[in-house]
Structure formats: structure tokens, C-alpha cells
């Protein structure tokens, strides 16, 4: 059996100059950079006052809204907003709630009152429900949920009060930086290639084969099908996962269109070849090209 070995090489970042999308150069700063010496501005997140000069405390892009200056960091933990869709993993089962790990500074909370009971009934949660919590969600389970509110300490409160949220079944989880996931109207996509994708705002992305069956009886999203997935579906899911990683490595904004274009560009290569740096570069370049044409 022949084995291929390659020496690690420095990653080259592709710079595709898109003159139309950038009206002005992005103002990028590193911690310690002076943003302005003008005292008329209010300081926002990511800045601090250093002897009358507004200085950045994180590495990122400077955003200015009227008189407010803040720095949006390029690499950060997920900062939740109300209404975001997140994919998380249950870490603890507590008395009336679950602790969910969502790649943020604090573990998020999923209260028992914020989940749908199996059977879809609407009633007050009883002690029976409390004792049966572990039957619904255990440690290690993956869920998709929406941010309902934010506690005073910054922890997120999640809810799964819709049929599209709930426990996730068979699929692949990809972890990328939260800043790469573009904010859109919907984060649940059924791609034409035959897979469904949930682009969590917290950087955790879930790829699964499209469920062709009708909704399960009772709903509530707690029943996950364990039927074997066909080979063709698995191949689509693997290819998508490799494409996602390629896009993430080259810091391309992730949304359904970019993912689809990347998938189409990658069809000429074998799935396992998509892990090679030069192939990744090739398909990302092709994707970027198409995106520019699409917008321009």
C-alpha cells in the first residue's frame, strides 16, 4: 500500500481584491494601537482609555456608529444575541435545567420550561418531568436551539420551542470561528445537493442528510432516527464537511450560497483530496470568483 507524505508548508492567504465590495479600507487594529486621540468619542467594547487616547484592547476591525467607537474582534468566543440559532452540546443535567456548551464565555442554560414536552402538550412542568429530564436530553447530546434571552452575567438562555429545534441525530459537526458565520434570515438550509445544514451562529455547524420522512409523531424534536444512512448521503455530507473546512481555513464568510458554490467547485475532485492544501486553495478561489460575479 503506497503512502503519501507531504512536508508542511506555509499557508498562503489568497487575496482577491474586490473593489466593489469595499468602499474604503478596513481599519484593522491590534491590541495597543491608538485608534484616535480625539476626546469627543464614546468608547465601546474592545477599547480603553490610555492617557486621553482611545486604544484598542483586542485585535479586530474598528466600527464607528456616530460618536461610538468599538472594536469588533476577529477571533473571539461567541457573544450571543437574542434570536440567534445555536448548536450546542449538553454538559450537565441539573435540577430544572440543562447546561449547554456553546463555545461562549459561559455555559448556556436550557431551562426545562423552555423545551417542548414529548407529545406536544402544554402544561406546567411537574416533578415527574424533572425526574424524567435525563430521558429527554443526556450529557453529550447535541441540540439546536434559539437564544431566548441573556442573563445579567452574560450567560445565554436557550429555548427549543419550535419543531425545527431539538436533539440532533445522525450527522457531522464542524467547529469554526463564530465570526465567520454570516447573520442571515434563516440558518436552516436544505441544500440542493441532498443534505441539510444548520449554520449555528456560535460557529458550530451541523451537517446531516435531508430527512425525507414526514414529521415524527408527537414532535418535540426528541426522537432521533437511527436508521442507517445510505452511502451516497454519507458522501454528500463528507464532501460538504471538507468544503466547510476549506472555506473556514481561508476565512471566507459562511452562508448557504458560498457553501453551495464551494460544493459545486469541489465536484471535480475526490472527497479525500479536498483535505490537501492546494486543492482547498483551488476550490476557494473558484468559490470566491463566483461569489464576486454573483454580487457584482
Amino acid at each position, binding site marked *: 500500500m*503506497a*503512502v*503519501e*507524505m507531504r*512536508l508542511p508548508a*506555509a499557508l498562503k492567504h489568497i487575496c482577491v481584491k474586490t473593489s466593489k465590495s469595499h468602499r474604503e479600507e478596513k481599519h484593522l487594529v491590534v491590541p495597543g494601537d491608538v485608534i484616535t486621540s480625539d476626546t469627543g468619542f464614546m468608547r465601546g467594547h474592545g477599547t480603553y482609555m490610555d492617557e486621553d487616547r482611545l486604544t484598542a484592547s483586542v485585535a479586530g476591525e474598528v466600527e464607528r456608529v456616530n460618536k461610538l467607537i468599538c472594536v469588533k474582534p476577529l477571533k473571539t468566543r461567541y457573544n450571543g444575541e437574542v434570536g440567534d440559532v445555536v448548536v450546542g*452540546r449538553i454538559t450537565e443535567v441539573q435540577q430544572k435545567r440543562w447546561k449547554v*456548551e456553546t463555545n461562549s464565555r459561559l455555559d448556556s442554560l436550557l431551562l426545562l420550561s423552555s423545551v417542548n414536552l414529548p407529545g406536544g402538550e402544554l402544561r406546567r412542568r411537574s416533578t415527574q418531568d424533572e425526574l424524567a429530564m435525563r430521558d429527554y436530553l443526556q450529557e*453529550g*447530546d447535541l441540540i439546536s436551539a434559539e437564544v431566548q434571552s441573556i442573563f445579567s452575567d452574560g450567560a445565554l438562555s436557550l429555548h427549543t420551542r419550535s419543531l425545527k429545534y431539538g436533539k440532533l441525530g445522525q450527522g457531522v459537526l464542524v467547529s469554526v470561528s463564530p465570526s465567520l458565520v454570516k447573520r442571515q434570515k434563516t440558518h436552516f438550509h436544505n441544500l440542493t445537493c441532498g443534505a441539510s445544514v444548520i449554520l449555528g451562529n456560535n460557529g458550530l455547524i451541523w451537517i446531516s442528510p435531508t430527512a425525507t420522512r414526514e414529521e415524527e409523531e408527537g414532535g418535540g424534536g426528541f426522537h432521533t432516527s437511527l436508521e442507517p444512512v445510505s452511502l451516497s448521503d454519507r458522501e454528500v455530507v463528507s464532501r460538504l464537511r471538507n468544503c466547510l473546512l476549506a472555506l473556514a481555513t481561508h476565512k471566507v464568510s459562511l452562508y448557504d450560497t458560498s457553501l453551495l458554490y464551494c460544493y459545486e467547485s469541489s465536484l471535480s475532485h475526490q472527497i479525500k483530496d479536498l483535505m490537501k492544501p492546494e486543492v482547498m486553495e483551488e476550490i476557494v478561489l473558484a468559490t470566491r470568483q463566483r461569489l464576486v460575479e454573483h454580487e457584482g
Partner: protein
Amino acid sequence: MRDTPLSNCERLFLLQAIQEKKRLDGRQTYDYRNIKILFGTDYGCCIVELGKTRVLCQVSCELVPPKDSRPTEGILYFNLELSPMASPAFESNRQSELLVMLNRQLERCLRNSKCIDTESLCVISGEKVWQIRVDVHVLNHDGNLMDAASIAAISALSHFRRPDVAIQGREVTVFSPEERDPIPLSIYHMPICVSFAFFLQGSYLLVDPCEREERVKDGLLVIAMNKHREICSIQSSGGIMLLKDQVKPVEMLLLVEGEHENHSSERIKPFPVLLCFSSFVLMQRKEGGKFGFAESLPIERITALKRDEAPVEMADVKDTAEEIINRTESSTEVYPPGLKTRERSAASPVLVATGTAQVGEGIVNSWGLEEDEDDEVIIEDKGGGNPRRLQNKGELELSLWLYFRLLYHTVRLHLFSLVRPGKLQDSEDLMQCLTPRVYLDDLEEGAGHTEEALMVLLAGSTSMMASSSGISSSISLQLVMSFVDF
């Protein structure tokens, strides 16, 4: 910060692999990872590397008044710290269960077993005694901290030297190391902890679990033992109920000494070997060579290779390509299998692209070694020796030869008499393997035997150790290789 939780897939995978008797790093059920013990410039400073787990231990001493209940005994103080650099899950100044468990086990292993003679630490009864302080810092957590910590602690204690004192009446004079040589501690025996991790309700057992395996374990059994086959402490944690007939095989594992010597007890034996290696290092220090941490800090191997792009003239590439194609003749004949691989690769269908190399059947190893042929021939041909083909490497031979002689003369006393304390015939065989009488006589004939000698040495030592355990052989190999590296 809490560690990222283990996904269900990974957990299932690990448990399934254990059921099929497979481990992530390819070890067997009772195999230990490579142990490296290194000593620093100060007495009592020791770093132990158990695979990727790194633990640092420092021993220091101080004159203090003794405890009221024990006026004639010295004081032993143990302190283990989980440094945040070891794992993101460790926070400084946080009292976690793991920390308490490790501290307690370390104390039990070293203090309750009475391995150090505390009476000898007394200077003036009731007034002044030596307090020996053992500080263990965990530098990297890749599983099995207990074993690494116990090895580090006992090595550091053996390495440590306390200052000499002179008592005149009630006056105590402490001499500095320059005035009088410091005195080693009196150690009766060396207890070392061995950890066994249980999985799937005690039905599967692994020795020396790595970090991933530790995450999915059900229970842990730590047994502290010494060379004399005495059990110093047993601790079972994790809530797994171990029946007596489950613990017994484990004990038997430790105590059995047969033809196929088990790995745990074998681990105890090479340990004194390594300690003698350490004393060798100390002797070496006087000769002014590089030793200790300076040479042991991991030398970063090549981890990144940056290649700049070279511009290529693309103007008339089509024409040049066609020319080249037309010039070469197509070779369609089939090469007989008896030919050497070098010749065969000329018409190989596999192209070696730049930056990649291919290793496998029928494909030449293209990592750029010039001495492929020489190596092959050496291994086949131990007895004879063909001096002509190695003449062009004169300098290398000479230096290797000198090293080899130094090796032989300085090491034989320290190393080999301790390898098999009870089995003289084995050590004699080993000596025979290594006796370079043949080579000494043939020095004039041709120094071409040097490489063979080295190969035989390695082959000999590995075969001797290979009958017992994988660990010993790797340790011996390490020893030999590190000698050569001097």
C-alpha cells in the same frame, strides 16, 4: 476553564477500541509509554516525561524545630501542584478533587511507606531537624499523572543531597557544598505507583491510561510497589466496585515473574538502571559536557517548511513539453521482479511530485538518503565485513569508534551489572554481545566494522530485552542512543 466535553462518537469509539483490545497509540494492554527521567543542575531537581505527560519535581531542605509528638524525626512535606500550563481545565488556586487525590496518594506512597529514614534527618533531638520539602509541578497533562509524579518524587529524592552538619554541644554548623560534600538521603526502598484504569464496569483493564482513555474510564486503581515486591499502598477510586477476584489478577500481574515477564514488574527493574544512568550523568557533569536540561529540552524538530514560489517561464512551455515527449522513448517492457528497486523506479507509473515523498512497495524511498544500499548490505552481513565500501566515511567511523570505546569502558560497570540482578547468565550474554574484542582486533584491518558494531549492539540489546517487555527494550535503546548522542 472547563475542558471541551468529549463527543459521544469519540467516547463510543474509545470504548469499542478497548473492547477490541486496541489502544489509540498502538500500545498493548499492559504497555507503558516511554519514560524519560532527566535531572537538572541542582541536586534534587528532576523532570519525568511519561509519553507526553511531563512532571517536574524539586526537593529542598531546611532546618526547623521538629513536631512535638516526634522530636527525633525529620519532617517530610509533599506538595503537588497542577499548573495551568498542563491543561486548560486546571486553574491556579483551585482545590479540585484530582488535586486532593494526587496529593493524598503521593503522601501515602512516600511517607506512609517509610521509604525515607526520617531518624537520620534529626540534628538535635527536640530542637532542630531537617525538613525535606518535595514540590511536584505538573507541566503537561496527557494522562496518568500519579505515576509520573511518584517517579519524579522518588527520583528527585534519590538525587537530592543535603548539606553536611557538624554538632558541637548545642551549636550546629551547616557546611556549604564547597566546604564539605553534601550527603544523600538514606532511602530504604523506592516505591512507585502503577495505575490501572477500568472500563465498562470493570470488565476491561488498561495500564497507564492516556488522557483520552482517562476521560472514558469507570474507575482507577493505583498500586504503589517497590522492587522487593512489597505493596506500599492500594487506592481504588471512581466508584467502581472491584471484586476480590478482579483485584487479584492485577496483583498477580505485578508480582509474577516468569519467562514472559509482565510489564509492570519489569518496569520496576529498569528503574534502578535509569538511576544509575543519572549518576553517570552527574559524573559527566564534572567533565564539562552538556547534560541535564540543556540537552534534554525538546529540540524542535522540523515542524514547518516554508518554500517561496519560484517564477517559471511559461512563454513557450508547450513547445518544450512536446520536444521532451518526442525525445524520450516509450518503455513498455516489463521489469523482472528480481531487479533492485532503484532501477525499477525509472519506469514507475507513480510520479514523485515536489514536496511529497512516497514510501511503499515497489516505490523508492525518496527522502534523500545516499546510503540506502550501504544500510541494506550491513544488516545482511554481520560477521564478515566489507571494508572497501565504507572507506569514504573515514571521519565518521573514527568518531563513532571513539564513542564506542568510551561507551564500553565507562558504561559496563554501571549499566550491565544492574540490568538483571538475579540473572547472571543474561547479563553475561549481554556482555558477550557487547564485547568488542572482535572489533578491537580488527581496528587495523579496517574500521568498517564500526557501523556493524553499532547495529549489532542495538540488535543485541534489543533482542535481550525484547524477550521480556517492550518497555525495557525501548528504555535500553534510549540509553544506548543517548550515549551515542554525547
